[in-house]
């Protein structure tokens, strides 16, 4: 086992072996800190983090799909609130999840500080002295060379230096010379870079969580958006810092287009926008598509969804236009069968509302109407008209996508194609004037993402050198010979050279490297 040959204090400090009792128990805090920063604790915390993440992939999560969480509440009315109290639907924001990674964070810092210090010392230390008997080492060799010991050892050292070994030349008391050499410090350096980068990565994530914001907004063809909290449909403000710091950009959706395969599988999406980084800046065009966000003043605008908006015109019985605008309908399936609500609260004798379904490619099937293709090949709007109090004055917040139909009177249903008009019994006319599309954009600002990216790059580099660099040592000793069968007599100085080496990590391939080094030394 190569581990047995590792003699650094570094590994002793990190040893998971029990600490000697008496010394540690003197100070409880210290004991606690020491056990928190041991590798075994780190492993345990790491495994706990992974284990804690598992239920988050099995239970519905608010951050991923709030609708599924609501469904779960409906299905398990007594169990769900209990689970909710344990944060099981917000697993990754749960206090105990945070507790695990904060402990891991502390543990990591606690073990890194002494290791960095030790490694800094190791980097300054000279390669160790040659052991007395090099032939005891795992790989070793011995030969005779011409020349005096000092010349031989200097040339051996030069060979090692050329191969970027760190060397130390020593004259020994008995007149021989030795060189100690070491290589592969990058392993521990890489390891430390990796672990430090993990800490930095966590800092970057925290920065994003504390100072970042994000929001979603639905924009219909031809309308605009400006970056203030009130323009968002959903907005999560920064947890620290102020909302007024949002960059003052704005944009208009000129046109959204989608194309599809004949099977209905989407092929491409484009949201053509005109944007202004600041209110007085020149307007610039941009094509926001999937995988291609628009970056303005530190915020990124992503295209995350799309759908149809049906343009409806309502006229009273005298022909006066009382309602004229596109209303976004929400898609229910991949073929964009969509539903929506149109409310006409003013301008007519009674308040009027519509619930409707929209089919971009209408198809009647035995199971009812449906859309058979997501593109608007043969659009049909199916409307039900309702009269009565729409409840808008009640003060209760109301979704723009629902109508309190239970308290309203149905006054007819109708299927309309674009351009068609429907006359209600009281003379009101409803025209399906045309079709627009809408797009939803997510606007996000994450001040930590650059830190995270840089840390991630260092993580990979650190990991590579930590796993692939091998730490190894070798020694060469040159001893002048006195006489013998080859030396002396002819006046030429001769030297016995012995060399030995050991791989401190993975021994594979070291013997080959050793041999090739010796071949160079022998010339």
């Amino acid at each position, binding site marked *: 086992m190569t581990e047995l040959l590792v003699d650094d204090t570094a590994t002793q400090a990190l040893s*998971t072996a029990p600490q000697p009792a008496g010394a540690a128990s003197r100070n409880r805090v210290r004991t606690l800190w020491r056990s928190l920063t041991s590798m075994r604790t780190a492993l345990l915390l790491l495994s706990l983090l992974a284990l804690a993440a598992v239920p988050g992939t099995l239970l519905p999560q608010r951050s991923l799909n709030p609708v599924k969480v609501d469904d779960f509440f409906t299905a398990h009315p007594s169990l769900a609130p209990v689970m909710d109290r344990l944060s099981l639907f917000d697993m990754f924001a749960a206090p105990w999840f945070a507790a695990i990674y904060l402990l891991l964070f502390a543990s990591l810092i606690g073990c890194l500080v002494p290791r960095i210090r030790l490694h800094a010392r190791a980097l300054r230390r000279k390669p160790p002295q040659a052991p007395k008997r090099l032939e005891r080492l795992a790989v070793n060799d011995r030969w005779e060379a011409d020349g005096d010991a000092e010349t031989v050892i200097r040339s051996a050292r030069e060979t090692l230096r050329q191969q970027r070994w760190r060397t130390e030349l020593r004259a020994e008391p008995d007149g021989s010379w030795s060189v100690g050499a070491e290589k592969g410090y990058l392993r521990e350096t890489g390891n430390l870079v990796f672990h430090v980068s993990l800490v930095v990565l966590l800092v970057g994530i925290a920065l994003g969580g504390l100072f970042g914001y994000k929001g979603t907004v639905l924009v219909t063809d031809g309308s605009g958006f400006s970056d203030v909290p009130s323009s968002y449909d959903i907005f999560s403000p920064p947890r620290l810092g102020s909302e007024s710091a949002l960059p003052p950009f704005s944009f208009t959706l000129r046109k959204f287009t989608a194309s599809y395969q004949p099977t209905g599988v989407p092929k491409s999406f484009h949201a053509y926008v005109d944007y202004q980084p600041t209110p007085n800046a020149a307007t610039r065009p941009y094509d926001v598509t999937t*995988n291609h966000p628009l970056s303005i003043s530190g915020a990124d605008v*992503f295209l995350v969804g799309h759908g149809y908006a049906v343009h409806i015109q309502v006229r009273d019985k005298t022909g006066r236009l009382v309602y004229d605008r596109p209303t976004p309908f929400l898609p229910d399936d991949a073929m964009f069968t969509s539903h929506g609500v149109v409310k006409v609260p003013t301008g007519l004798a009674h308040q009027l509302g519509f619930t409707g379904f929209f089919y971009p490619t209408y198809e009647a099937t035995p199971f009812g109407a449906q859309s058979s293709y997501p593109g608007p090949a043969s659009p049909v709007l199916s409307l039900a008209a309702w009269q009565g109090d729409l409840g808008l004055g009640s003060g209760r917040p109301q979704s723009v996508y629902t109508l309190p139909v239970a308290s309203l009177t149905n006054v007819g249903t109708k299927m309309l194609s674009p351009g068609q008009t429907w006359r209600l019994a009281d003379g009101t006319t409803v025209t399906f004037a045309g079709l627009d599309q809408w797009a939803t954009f997510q606007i996000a600002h994450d001040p930590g993402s650059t830190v995270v990216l840089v840390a991630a790059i260092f993580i990979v580099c650190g990991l590579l050198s930590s796993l692939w660099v091998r730490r190894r040592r070798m020694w060469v000793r040159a001893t002048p010979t006195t006489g013998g069968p080859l030396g002396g007599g002819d006046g030429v100085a001769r030297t016995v050279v012995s060399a030995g080496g050991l791989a401190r990590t993975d021994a594979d391939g070291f013997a080959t490297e050793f041999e090739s080094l010796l071949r160079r030394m022998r010339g």
Partner: protein
Amino acid sequence: MPGVNVSLAHASDVLFMWTVLVYAVAMFGYSAEFAFSRIGRSRAEKPVPDERRVTPEQIGRVAVGLTVVGWLLHVGSVVTRGAAVNRVPWGNMYEFSTMVALVAVTVFLVLLTRQPVRFLGAFVMTPVVLYLGLAGTVLYAPAAPLQPILNSYWIKIHVVAAITASGGFMVSGVITMLYLTRTWLDRRASVGPGTAAAVEYGGLSRWLPSAERLDRLAYKVIGFAFPVWTFAIIAGAIWAKYAWSRYWGWDPKETWSFITWVAYAAYLHARATAGWRGRRAAVLSLIGFSCLMVDYYVVNTVISGLHSYAGVGG
């Protein structure tokens, strides 16, 4: 289907079938070499040389040759698939699985050029053939263009890294199982030295390389696959940043990749500390491999998330 070159797609499917066939024959070849050479060795100290008889050694060499032929066919199948749909050939689970198998075979062949690991042949080719069989039947999806969300050059980087790492993890998983088998046999053999059972277990045990060697080999392959997996996760996060506006969202796929990563990190730590070598570390690495399988198969088919583009079951 438009956007698909039907004849190329067909060629890809035919090449795929031939790949599985050739691999299967290679698999039998490796198994035969493995079995006959060990039996020969245990029957007699020196097998009588017979000029006309085929030696197990020769069968093994033929199996390697067949593996190379299969590998070429395999590459052909993947390339024609990509050309048929004019995109990278890893957009659904069928394509993904055949790529993972291709990497596993590549890792094995590369190992073979550096170390005498032909004994691994049977153990690598068997799962590869089964895996390809699964890919070609249950997971099969006809050639079709990609969904827009997958249409980014990050798919090349992220998915290539994920496939490479998975192929590596698969090979190391096989080696780890051999390691566990070997240590189990050794323990059985050491129970009562000299007993019939001990002789039998000891004989079986010698069929495999030493536990030490298997352990080191498994570690080497994970040492290669782990950084690649780390890179795959990071590339995925960068891609997610462009596609979904956040680099990390605890989507089930992301979460299981993270869990897999942690399991292998635990394995590396366990190996780095003296007390946790060997069997316990091996168990950790198999846990890691199970997490990887959950990540690919359970998450893609059972748990839905943003990554649900597997192309399986509609």
